[in-house]
């Protein structure tokens, strides 16, 4: 379980999320939605341990770095790098392999299964530069599978891919949910959230709603999030009293 206690996170010293309290239950499948600039990515990075909270507390009980897998929205990786799909997927075992250890036969089999599961069988030897955006995202999902993490954080994983790939990847996420992994995904497609994500956190710098998806994604809540987004002051100081309008 991940507990947030009065958590405030900031992006380049500007507040991104204010005073957020709540919990992601172990094994929960949660979508984070909200307008652009609502602090979704910063919150996800904080959960991943890449950004330190500006204030408040984040409790990730029992979760070590190795138990957390994080897929950024636009990975800073070099798509033309001379590396094969197979090697990218095996990177998921970095924790075990480290600098020197050779790849065990079981790990090779694991990689082959993951590549097949994401629908890239036959692409193992292909350099990643030859993959389409959707195929590349599939490869990154296979790498996530090899990370075998208890907590999986996805930042807009479907933003640049076609509907069929998105459906396939959502099926994989559902599989992780069945395996009792905790999955938290930042998403924009509200229909997909309603169909596939039992819990939702609606964020507009402040928490608008957090709980069962059908109770959070109401017209009233979405309207409130939209109105708050319109009144944001981009230069507000952290926790200045004026940043949250009284709606």
């Amino acid at each position: 379980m991940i507990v947030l206690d009065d958590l405030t996170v900031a992006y380049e010293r500007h507040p991104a999320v204010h005073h957020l309290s709540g919990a992601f239950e172990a094994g929960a499948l949660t979508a984070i939605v909200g307008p652009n600039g609502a602090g979704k990515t910063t919150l996800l990075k904080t959960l991943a341990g890449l950004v330190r909270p500006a204030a408040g507390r984040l409790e990730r009980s029992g979760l070590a770095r190795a138990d957390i897998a994080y897929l950024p929205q636009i990975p800073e990786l070099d798509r033309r790098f001379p590396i094969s799909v197979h090697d990218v997927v095996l990177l998921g075992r970095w924790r075990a392999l480290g600098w020197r250890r050779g790849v065990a036969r079981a790990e090779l089999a694991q990689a082959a299964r993951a590549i097949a599961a994401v629908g890239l069988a036959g692409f193992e030897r292909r350099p990643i530069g030859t993959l389409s955006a959707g195929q590349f995202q599939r490869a990154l999902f296979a790498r996530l599978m090899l990370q075998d993490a208890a907590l999986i954080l996805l930042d807009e994983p479907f933003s640049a891919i076609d509907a069929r790939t998105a459906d396939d990847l959502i099926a994989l996420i559902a599989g992780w949910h069945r395996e009792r992994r905790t999955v938290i995904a930042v998403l924009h497609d509200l229909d997909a959230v309603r169909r596939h994500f039992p819990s939702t956190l609606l964020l507009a710098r402040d928490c608008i709603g957090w709980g069962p998806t059908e109770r959070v994604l109401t017209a009233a809540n979405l309207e409130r999030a939209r109105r708050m987004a319109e009144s944001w002051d981009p230069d507000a100081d952290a926790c200045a009293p004026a940043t949250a309008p009284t709606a």
Partner: protein
Amino acid sequence: MTVHDLIVAPFADHGALRRALVACIALALGGGPVGTLLVLRRMSLMGDSLSHAVLPGVAVGYLVTGGSIGAMSLGGVVAGLAVALLSGLVTRLTPAHEDASFAAFFLISLAAGVLIVTRAGRDEDLVHILFGDLLALSPDGLVLLAAVSTVTVVGVALLYRPLIVDCFDPQFLRAAGAAGSVAYVGFLLLVVLNLVGAYQAMGTLMALGLIMLPAAAARFWARAVWSLMLTSSGLALAASVAGLLIAHHAGLPAGSTIVLVAGAVYLLSVAFGPRDSLRVRYRRPAHLRA
């Protein structure tokens, strides 16, 4: 004139040429992997800046000890690493782009180096440091080149995996909690070591010539990181032998001739290499032919 006269005799008859060949072999072995990593990191031009940035350290080492290879090299390594780490620091702590901070620090370093050399040294010192002298390498210089080459090959072998991952997906390495900065600093150290080795032979102006040009050319021949490194070393070696022979027979300066031959290899690779070259890209597909 026989083939023996053209290719074997020069090396058999001239010790200076043999020593130059050994120096080039050492440079090629270390430069292949380092150049490949520079290309993959898109740091080709930064490597060039770095090669000029070692100048003040070399100059100070020269002035303090009167030309001890060890002191000059140590000075060069310190100056090069200082420039690399300071510009890295500015890039991390401010929103400035890496190339701008690199350029700023290398220019400061280069100007300081020229100032030191011209104020306290003689003109021929400056010429020697700027252009090197491949045919007048001292035994100490050769040992240094061999040591750099050995450290590079062993270092790349030890750091191979983190170097590649840090180059391909640094964010992943950070999120996995692995020490990507160890790989990065190790990489910078290898680059600076090779530059300091290369400036002896080629001078600071062209230190990267035998490192960068073969690595840039290798991209049109090979596709995996290891094969890029091997190809790069091989092309550097071929360019060295050919360059030395041409320089010898035509009475040209060795360093710049070798770099020009490496440049010709690069141009030929761009035009005719088996992978992604102009020939491959603009060849009409067979099924479109009438």
